[in-house]
C-alpha cells in the first residue's frame, strides 16, 4: 500500500552487512506525489563505479543514482548525507554486496517521504500552454483573460469565431494583431454580402506573418478562404503568398484561421470589398445593346433592340426589343430570347394569279406574283415582285403592301374572225 513515508535500512544495520547479498525495496507513495529519498547514514565499501557493493536508486527504469563509500552530513544542521527527489510516485532501491565485507561496513539508513510534485516545473515539459497552478497531488492550467481552456485542460485558445461581416467593405485581422496570435485556436469568420456581389479579399504582403510551412510544405498555422466549392489557401509564412486580390466569385466567404500550439507570429490583416457580379457581354446576333458598356455588372439593365428585319417572339407576339437584367448569379435574365428574322408567312393568294413559292418566308425573301396569261395581266406594271420586309409584310415597290391585281385582258379574241370570200 502506498505510504506517505518510510524507512529503509540495509541488512543487519547498524551491524556490518552480510556478504553476497542483494535486496531491493519498492517504494510507492500516493499518486500525485513525488518521493524525497534521503540517506542519513551511508557506509558501503568503496569501489570504482561502486562495482563491489552499492545502493542503487532506480526510477521508471532509469538509474537516478548509485552510492558507495562513506558520506558525512554536509550541513551540520541536517543529518542528511545524500538525497534524491523524483517527481514520480514510485522508486526502487537496490542494495548489493560482493563476497567480502572484511572491514565491516555498516550499510545505510535511508528515509523517504511523499513530497508534493510541482508538475508545473518538475518536468522537462510545460504541461500548460499559459499558466500552471500546482497543488498537492496535482496541477491545473489556467488562461489569460479572453482565452479559454481547451478540453485537454492544458492548452488555451481564444473565442475568435462567429463574426459575420456584412458591410460592403471591411477589415478583418487575426486576434491580437499585430501582437502574436493565440495558439491552439480555430477562428472562423464569415463575410456575407448581398447576393449579386462577390467578395474580393485583399491581403498586402506585409500584413501577413504566420508560422511558416514545415519541410513538407504543411502549414502549422494557416489561413484559408472558402467560397462555395472553391478554396483559397491554406496560406502561411512571412509575407502573403497568394495574389493581392482574391476574387471569390461568391457573396459568402468563410475565413478559417487555424493555429497549433507553437508560434509567435503577429498574424494577418485583410481588407475586403463587395464587387458587383459581372455578367458576360453575350453576343446576341442581329441586335443592338443599349447602353453599350465594356463591362456589365449585377443590376445593370440593357435594352436589346433587334436589328431591322429581326424580332423577338414571346409566345405569338413579335417584339422589336426586350430588356435584360444582370442577375445576382451572373447570368442575364431573358437570356433565352433571341432576335430572329421576321417571318412574313406564306404570300397571300390572289385571284387569277399566283405567287411563286418563295422557298423561304423570312426577312429579305422575295416572291413573284404572276397572272394567268394570256387572259389576265397585272393591273400595274412592275407590281409582281414582293420583298419580305422587316415589319413582317410582303411589300412591292409600287403597291406597297397591297396585293397585285390580275385583270382580264380585253379585246383580244383567241381566234381572229375571218370572213370567207363569197
Amino acid at each position: 500500500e502506498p505510504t506517505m513515508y518510510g524507512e529503509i535500512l540495509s541488512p543487519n544495520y547498524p551491524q556490518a552487512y552480510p556478504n553476497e547479498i542483494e535486496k531491493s525495496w519498492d517504494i510507492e507513495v500516493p499518486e500525485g506525489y513525488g518521493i524525497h529519498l534521503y540517506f542519513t547514514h551511508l557506509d558501503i565499501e568503496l569501489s570504482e563505479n561502486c562495482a563491489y557493493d552499492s545502493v542503487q536508486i532506480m526510477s521508471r527504469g532509469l538509474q537516478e543514482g548509485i552510492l558507495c563509500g562513506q558520506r558525512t552530513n554536509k550541513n551540520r544542521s541536517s543529518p542528511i548525507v545524500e538525497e534524491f527527489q523524483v517527481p514520480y510516485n514510485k522508486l526502487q532501491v537496490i542494495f548489493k554486496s560482493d563476497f567480502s565485507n572484511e572491514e565491516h561496513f555498516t550499510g545505510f539508513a535511508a528515509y523517504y517521504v511523499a513530497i508534493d510534485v510541482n508538475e508545473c516545473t518538475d518536468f522537462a515539459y510545460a504541461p500548460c500552454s499559459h499558466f500552471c497552478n500546482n497543488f498537492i497531488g496535482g496541477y491545473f492550467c489556467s488562461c489569460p483573460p479572453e482565452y479559454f481552456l481547451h478540453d485537454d485542460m492544458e492548452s488555451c485558445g481564444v473565442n475568435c469565431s462567429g463574426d459575420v461581416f456584412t458591410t460592403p467593405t471591411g477589415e478583418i485581422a487575426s486576434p491580437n494583431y499585430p501582437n502574436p496570435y493565440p495558439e491552439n485556436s480555430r477562428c472562423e469568420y464569415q463575410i456575407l454580402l448581398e447576393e449579386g456581389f462577390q467578395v474580393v479579399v485583399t491581403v498586402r504582403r506585409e500584413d501577413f506573418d504566420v508560422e511558416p510551412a514545415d519541410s513538407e510544405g504543411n502549414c502549422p498555422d494557416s489561413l484559408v478562404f472558402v467560397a462555395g466549392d472553391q478554396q483559397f489557401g491554406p496560406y502561411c509564412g512571412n509575407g502573403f503568398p497568394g495574389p493581392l486580390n482574391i476574387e471569390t466569385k461568391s457573396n459568402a466567404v468563410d475565413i478559417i484561421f487555424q493555429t497549433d500550439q507553437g508560434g509567435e507570429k503577429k498574424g494577418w490583416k485583410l481588407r475586403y470589398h463587395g464587387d458587383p457580379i459581372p455578367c458576360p457581354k453575350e453576343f446576341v446576333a442581329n441586335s443592338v445593346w443599349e447602353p453599350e458598356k465594356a463591362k456589365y455588372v449585377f443590376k445593370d439593365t440593357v435594352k436589346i433592340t433587334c436589328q431591322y428585319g429581326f424580332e423577338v417572339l414571346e409566345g405569338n407576339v413579335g417584339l422589336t426589343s426586350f430588356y435584360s437584367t444582370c442577375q445576382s448569379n451572373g447570368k442575364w435574365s431573358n437570356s433565352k430570347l433571341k432576335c430572329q428574322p421576321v417571318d412574313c408567312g406564306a404570300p397571300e393568294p390572289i385571284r387569277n394569279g399566283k405567287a411563286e413559292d418563295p422557298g423561304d418566308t423570312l426577312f429579305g425573301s422575295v416572291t413573284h406574283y404572276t397572272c394567268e396569261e394570256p387572259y389576265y395581266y397585272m393591273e400595274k406594271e412592275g407590281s409582281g415582285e414582293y420583298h419580305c420586309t422587316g415589319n413582317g409584310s410582303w411589300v412591292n415597290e409600287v403597291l406597297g403592301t397591297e396585293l397585285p391585281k390580275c385583270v382580264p385582258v380585253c379585246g383580244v379574241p383567241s381566234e381572229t374572225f375571218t370572213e370567207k370570200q363569197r
Partner: protein
Amino acid sequence: IFGGQPAKIENFPWQVFFSSPWAGGALIDEHWVLTAAHVVEGNQDPIMYVGSTLVRTSVLENAQMITAERVFIHPDWEFMDVPETRKNFDNDIALVRLKDPVKMGPTVSPICLPGTTPEYNPSVTDLGLISGWGRTRKQNHVIKLRGARLPVAPLAKCQEVKPTDSKVVTGRYVFTDNMICAGGEKGVDSCEGDSGGAFAIQDPNEENPKFYVAGLVSWGPQCGTYGIYTKVKNYIDWITKTMQENSTPSTD
C-alpha cells in the same frame, strides 16, 4: 345577223347570250356586262351565258352561266308602257352587274371600252365586227353564233332608209348623236335577237389587234340595210362611274 358567217365564240369571246329575251351583250369586265337598255327593260333578272358558240339548251347546260346581281339602265332611257311602239332608242344602254366574277379563258374574255380621245370616235368607213344569235334572212334566230364585218356609215344613211314595210315610217324615229349608223353593204346587218351585242372596232392605238366596243346593237328600220348602234364612247363616264360606285372591293 344578216349576211356574215358562222363564227366561233373564240372569235367573239366577249359575246354574252341572253336567253330571255333572246339577245346579246358584251362582257366588259369580270363583273359587268354591257347591253342595250331595251334588252333588259322588261327583264331585270336576266340569265346569261358566256363561252359557248352554240346556244342550244342542252349545250348551254354545260356553258358558263352568269347571273345578274343588279341591272343598271341608263337614267335617260325612256321607259314606255308599250315598248313595241318605241320610236326613241336614245340612251339605249344598260349595265348588268354579275353576282360572281366570270373566269376568263380562250372562250371568255372581255372587250375593251373605248378611250375618251377623239381616235375612238367611229369614223365613216371604219370597219367593225358584230356577232350574235339573232335573226338571219332565213331564221328567226340561230343556234350557232354568227359574225359579220361592216363599215360605219353616216347617220343620214340610216335616216334615209325606206323600209319595205309601209307601216314603218323612218321619219318618226329619233336619231341622236348617241347613235352610230353602220352597215349597208351587201345586206350585212344585225337584226332582232342580236340586240345588246358589241359593234367592235379595232383599237387604233394598239399594234396588235385589239377590239373595243364602239357600239351596241340597238335598232334599225329594216334588217339587211343600215343598223343603228348605241355610241358607247358617249357613255364612258356613266359606265365607269356606275362600275366604280357598285364595285364590291371584297370580291374585287
